[in-house]
């Protein structure tokens, strides 16, 4: 199952754990990333709160927690090489894995066609 937020994050859900990243649209708008700061593994994050930070040459942007949950794994490859996010935002450029506190909360997110409509 693939879900999207209005804040341009994607969630790929497998066995109650969501792999979270930013969309190709967001990566394109941000431009080449030069720095990524991820949450600590084990952190409990709350929907809407800042979970990660991405920076381009010009600007810093927050990546918000898409839902409540516990960070169970982070992708340190993107902190080593932020350009992975631009090159493969929905694959090798994933950010973290989130064990969701409430699976039914996924119902409030968009599916792919709704997200595509949002970004026009």
């Amino acid at each position, binding site marked *: 199952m693939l879900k999207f937020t209005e804040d341009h994050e994607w969630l790929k859900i497998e066995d109650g754990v969501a792999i979270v990243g930013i969309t190709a649209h967001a990566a394109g708008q941000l*431009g080449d990333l030069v720095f990524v700061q991820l949450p600590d593994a084990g952190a409990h994050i709350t929907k809407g709160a800042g979970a990660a930070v991405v920076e381009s040459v010009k600007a810093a942007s927050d*990546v918000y927690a898409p839902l409540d949950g516990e960070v169970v794994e982070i992708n340190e490859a993107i902190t080593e090489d932020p350009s992975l996010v631009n090159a493969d935002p929905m694959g090798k450029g994933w950010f973290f894995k989130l064990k969701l506190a409430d699976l039914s909360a996924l119902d409030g997110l968009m599916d792919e066609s709704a997200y595509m409509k949002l970004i026009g």
Partner: protein
Amino acid sequence: MSIEPRPVSTDPSAAPRSPSTSPPLKQTPLHALQLTLGARMVPFAGYEMPVQFAAGVLKEHLQVRGSAGLFDVSHMGQLVVRAKSGIAVDAARALELLVPVDILGLAAGRQRYALFTNASGGVLDDLMIANRGDHLLLVVNGACKEADEAYLRAMLSKTCEIERLDRALIALQGPKSGPALATLAPDCTDMNFMDVREIAILGHACVVARSGYTGEDGFEISTPASAAVEITEALLADPAVAPIGLGARDSLRLEAGLCLYGCELDDTTTPVEAALGWAISKARRAAGARAGGFPGAGVILGQLAHGAAKTRVGLRPEGRAPVRGGAPLFLSLEGGAPIGIVTSGGFGPSVDAPVAMSTVTTAYAATGTRLFAEVRGKRLPVAVAELTFVPHTYRRG
């Protein structure tokens, strides 16, 4: 996450404005062409200006350092100061009342960096002043140009005519800018850094200065507004030249250690505090032929003699996290009062690391001093560094 375009600097004029209260954004003569070239536009200094093209800030920055880039800087002000007496030196003498710079000693065909100072020694604007023979040509910041023009009229109208030129201004910057311009204007080839010359480009009368805002060799070309598109298209036809937005302009000047008005310079910061003492000409210093005689001379010459309490320095963050403008600086990981503030900062694509400029208490300004910048509530170690993160490659004959 927020992916809205943001202002490209802390220049106060770049702040987003409420559409209901602000006048419509102006457009430069290159506006339509830049849209066809894929520009992403943002409000800047009252204009709609390209922040980047399709390549993006990082690649545009490296394009300029490695080849050549073309910038539309037509939002900047171009002002002529001409002596009413018809005697050119009278204009130079008049302008010396407003800047701590030797204008009487500026040869025809040369330009000099200058600052309009105020009575307390602060900076109203920074600018270029060119001696064009029978007049002086001033190029001032876009965000300050109306205030500058009014100031010149208020201060110099008895002796000088002030004229605003509605011309375009194109900057061609980078190691391949010389060959690129030479194909259209062979006369530019033997120009040196800060030379200014009238040159016909495609039959249009242009004023070409060998200068810029990137640290690279390059040119700033004042063209008739009606010829700007034709000349720009001809320059861009060279495969070595690409269009560059304001985003890369800012990262390039930051790496080169060049001040941006509104960040490193403002009306409460003196030239000495901004580490621009070099711009104060010998003739205008304490023992000079025309010592003082500009606004704030007492403060500025006093600081030159005895030092200022704060100064501008470069910063190299130890980690990979960029440290941006506004971050306070501390002496230790915890506690204590700030001893400075970051004025501009970001990622330097040519340095391949974060770089920043800051104002710090002079006691902590020595290169290598370890300080801590507060970013998102955490104090990150940074080292005081030289102001130029990349060597300047100006053509000095």
